[in-house]
């Protein structure tokens, strides 16, 4: 049965087109109650007193939860630095709110309306504290301390030193230097955060919710509620998009806490919560804004000899995944180039803004903006074609990464760059790479319009990095007598939309040599499956594919030895990465990379400031497209998010408040905001470590559109914008048609 490379229909598609697919927000249980959270709506304050008496007196209110109800009032992805409910508590410094979406109380009531009304009746005495939102302000020694138990708002410093940076700049004929800023970005997954919690038939506290890694949610719930992990059960039904924004806890702990409290009160009713859009936007993390201070040098024959980057990552009020995002940004800030002398310093900084966390690309898109903007500037400074400059510096098979270790096998950055460049009009000749489409600024018909072409390229690591003990566990059961009648795959891959369940079914059918119809999945219920790891870091196809391939081989061997039924658990352990040296950052960071290059053709309207992206050319090496149609859908969707990031999505914050609190003010691309045709070239150069040669895909296309747009706008206008999104107002300021802010 050959299913690899076939565009089979998604296994969940019929239910989804009919509206029958069940999301957590659709679930109803008999006797369920409704929970509403009271968010602080102020960016920094000590909670002196919470008076719930009026709320509790309201008819229909069942209970009100505050900090004193939380057994262990802390949670967090890597560090438990956030209170579940802020307020007086046995935990030192759990008494304060650090961003507007921090939760102070929660009401459980007969209806959602009553719960909301009761929230208004809760009286909270706050003592406001000074607010710090800018990273450079927050770094100062006398800045307001956001976590008083630490001696600074800077919570980590990552380094990557290699070669001799000063000697590198001495060799350079051309040096470019810039300060660059990248914006926050809201995930805007269509389904807001939801949860339903109850005591299951075996006395476990069950939480049906939206998420990306059930085992990680379970760990944090159990910690905060002071329960053993096996007393907590996390179940994910269909999830309406994630993009990294569901990596961290949102509603899970509080809804579980409420269900546990009702149980203890002898009123064991289920509790349901659904965040509205505003709660979602102020309550969950954003893509980190980064500020880069950077300097790049090259010789006149186009050899990049030195790159220096200092980057400030705005971590927001709590750590979430910031430290790992920033370490990923460290590598990507230097791009996929061979550079002999490099120095990177990355600082992670607490501010009183909505926490920053994972978002498709995981620090990559920000850092790649730095690398690619600077390489494009170097090309301009050298008067050299930007593709030509890249070809003189890009890594190849066997190259050392700037971080020291050799690249994982299967380096294809040159192949994707060449494929993309040719699509966008570049050609090679005896004088190297050139493009007739660049440098043609003025539209002959409408002189207000300027044309431009720009290109950027990038790699994205696949899987968790830097020594994390990556692995992926699945279960395989085979039933039947003479032949396999049914195979059950137990796995923890949350279906957040990317097609994991379909691809798992395809890979399992192929590996076991049976029709897809005979595969059953038991999915994402921590009581029924083992840990397959997170659906993030472009990792699931790669890791679970290898687990399925290895596991199926073992299962078939047992089957051949007449074992009936077969029950097998298998864990895939990839190439073990290593942690960075604390002083130099040197390590073997990643298992595998995906590669992409992207070019855009833009029209800039010099009167209105509108940047219209007319064409996108994207070359991407997926190793092997397990399901080509789903691969195309992933790439197109990621590119559209990138169009939003580059020219539209303007997340506005002021003094810790969010001014864009709904989809009416935070604008994500509609179908009319994107070019009708995206020119996508899917390359399939096998990854020696990937299952059937597949590479990770989920984030790769999100890596480099913004710097390509920036280069295209420079080609059109002659101006380097060192920040984005390139909304009309910013373009008009840049071309001096509006005063600077």
């Amino acid at each position, binding site marked *: 049965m050959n299913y690899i490379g076939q565009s089979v229909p998604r296994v969940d598609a019929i239910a989804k087109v009919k509206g029958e697919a069940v999301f957590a927000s659709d679930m109803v249980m008999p006797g369920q109650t409704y929970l509403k959270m009271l968010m602080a709506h102020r960016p920094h304050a000590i909670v002196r007193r919470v008076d719930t008496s009026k709320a509790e007196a309201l008819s229909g209110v069942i209970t009100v939860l505050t900090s004193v109800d939380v057994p262990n009032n802390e949670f967090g992805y890597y560090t438990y630095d956030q209170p579940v409910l802020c307020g007086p508590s046995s935990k030192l410094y759990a008494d304060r709110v650090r961003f507007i979406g921090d939760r102070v109380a929660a009401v459980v009531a007969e209806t959602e309306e009553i719960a909301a009304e009761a929230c208004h009746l809760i009286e909270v005495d706050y003592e406001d504290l000074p607010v710090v939102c800018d990273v450079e302000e927050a770094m100062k020694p006398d800045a307001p301390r956001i976590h008083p138990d630490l001696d600074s708002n800077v919570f980590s410093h990552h380094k990557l030193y290699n070669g001799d940076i000063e000697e590198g700049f001495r060799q350079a004929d051309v040096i470019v230097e810039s300060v660059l800023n990248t914006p926050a970005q809201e995930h*805007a997954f269509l389904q807001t955060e939801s949860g339903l919690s109850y005591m299951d038939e075996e006395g476990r506290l069950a939480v049906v919710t939206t998420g990306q890694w059930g085992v990680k949610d379970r760990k944090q719930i159990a910690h905060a509620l002071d329960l053993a992990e096996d007393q907590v059960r996390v179940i994910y039904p269909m999830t309406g998009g994630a993009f990294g924004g569901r990596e961290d806890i949102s509603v899970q702990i509080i809804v579980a806490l409420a269900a546990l409290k009702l149980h203890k009160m002898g009123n064991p009713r289920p509790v349901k919560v659904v965040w509205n*859009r505003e709660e979602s936007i102020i309550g969950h993390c954003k893509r980190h804004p980064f500020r880069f201070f950077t300097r790049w040098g090259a010789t006149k024959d186009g050899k990049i000899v030195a790159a220096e980057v200092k980057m400030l990552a705005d971590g927001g009020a709590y750590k979430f995944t910031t430290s790992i995002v920033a370490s990923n940004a460290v590598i990507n800030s230097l791009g996929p180039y061979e550079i002999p002398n490099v120095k990177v310093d990355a600082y992670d900084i607490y501010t009183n803004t909505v926490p920053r966390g994972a978002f498709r690309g995981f620090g990559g898109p920000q850092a790649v903006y730095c690398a690619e903007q600077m390489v494009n500037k170097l090309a301009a400074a050298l008067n050299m074609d930007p593709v030509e400059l890249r070809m003189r510096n890009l890594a190849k098979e066997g190259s050392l990464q700037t971080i020291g270790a050799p690249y994982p096998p299967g380096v294809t950055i040159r192949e994707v760059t060449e494929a993309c460049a040719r699509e966008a009009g570049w050609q090679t000749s005896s004088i190297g790479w050139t493009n007739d489409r660049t440098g043609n600024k003025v539209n002959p018909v409408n002189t207000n319009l300027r044309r431009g072409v720009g290109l950027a390229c990038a790699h994205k690591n696949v899987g968790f990095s830097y020594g994390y003990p990556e692995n992926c566990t699945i279960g395989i059961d085979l039933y039947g007598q003479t032949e396999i009648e049914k195979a059950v795959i137990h796995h923890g891959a949350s279906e957040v*939309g990317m097609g994991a369940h379909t691809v798992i079914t395809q890979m399992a059918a192929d590996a076991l040599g049976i029709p897809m119809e005979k595969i059953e999945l038991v999915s994402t219920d921590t009581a029924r499956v083992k840990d397959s790891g997170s659906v993030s870091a472009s990792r699931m196809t790669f890791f679970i594919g290898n687990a399925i391939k290895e596991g199926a081989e073992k299962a078939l061997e047992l089957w051949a030895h007449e074992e009936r039924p077969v029950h097998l658990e298998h864990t895939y352990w990839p190439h073990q990465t290593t942690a960075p040296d604390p002083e130099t950052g040197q390590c073997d960071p990643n298992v595998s990379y995906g590669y992409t290059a992207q070019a855009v053709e833009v029209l800039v309207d010099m009167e209105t400031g509108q940047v219209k992206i007319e064409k996108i050319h994207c070359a991407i090496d997926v190793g092997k497209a397990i399901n080509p149609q789903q691969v195309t859908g992933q790439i197109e969707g990621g590119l559209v998010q990138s169009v939003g990031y580059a020219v539209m999505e303007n997340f506005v914050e002021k003094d810790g408040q969010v001014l864009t609190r*709904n989809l*009416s003010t935070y604008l994500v691309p509609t179908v009319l905001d994107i070019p009708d045709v995206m020119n996508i070239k899917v390359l399939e150069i096998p990854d020696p470590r990937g299952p059937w040669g597949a590479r990770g895909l989920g984030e790769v296309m999100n890596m480099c559109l913004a710097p390509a747009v920036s280069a295209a706008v420079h080609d059109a206008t002659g101006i380097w914008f060192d920040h984005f999104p390139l909304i009309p107002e910013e373009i008009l300021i840049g071309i001096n048609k509006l005063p600077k802010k």
Partner: protein
Amino acid sequence: MIFDLIVNEEPIHTEAPADISLLHFLRDHLKLTGTKEGCNVGECGACSVLLDGKLVNSCLILAAQANGRRVVTIEGIHAEDGGPNDLQQAFIEYGAVQCGFCIPGMVLAGEALLNSNINPTRAEIREAIAGNLCRCTGYQQIVDAIQATALKRQEKGRRD
């Protein structure tokens, strides 16, 4: 108040609060959870339904405004045998579905267009779904699915 309306060809007679939105009336009172809430301010289109054949955001309409009228939700769109209809089948075939949260609204936007325009251009299809956000697919495969269905329905129209 008492509501009397037709939902998916079925007469509904039930009591609900007078100020309830059509969206919450459908989801909470009729348990028709295929209609989704994405923003509650009419920006995302996940709550799209047909009201007397016209596409509306059910979050922006009071159930009272639908009284005495015909509402079609995603549960009312299907083939005669209860399976996916031709447009839904095209969504599946063209890979137009990812997380699926926007899809009920997208299908209804497609139906609303094809009900009024049997031969839409690609630009008209894009216009027709411009009020429906999708954060996963990038829209192309959705447009392809609606376009393919339009062509099939035209062929079928010519045959019949």
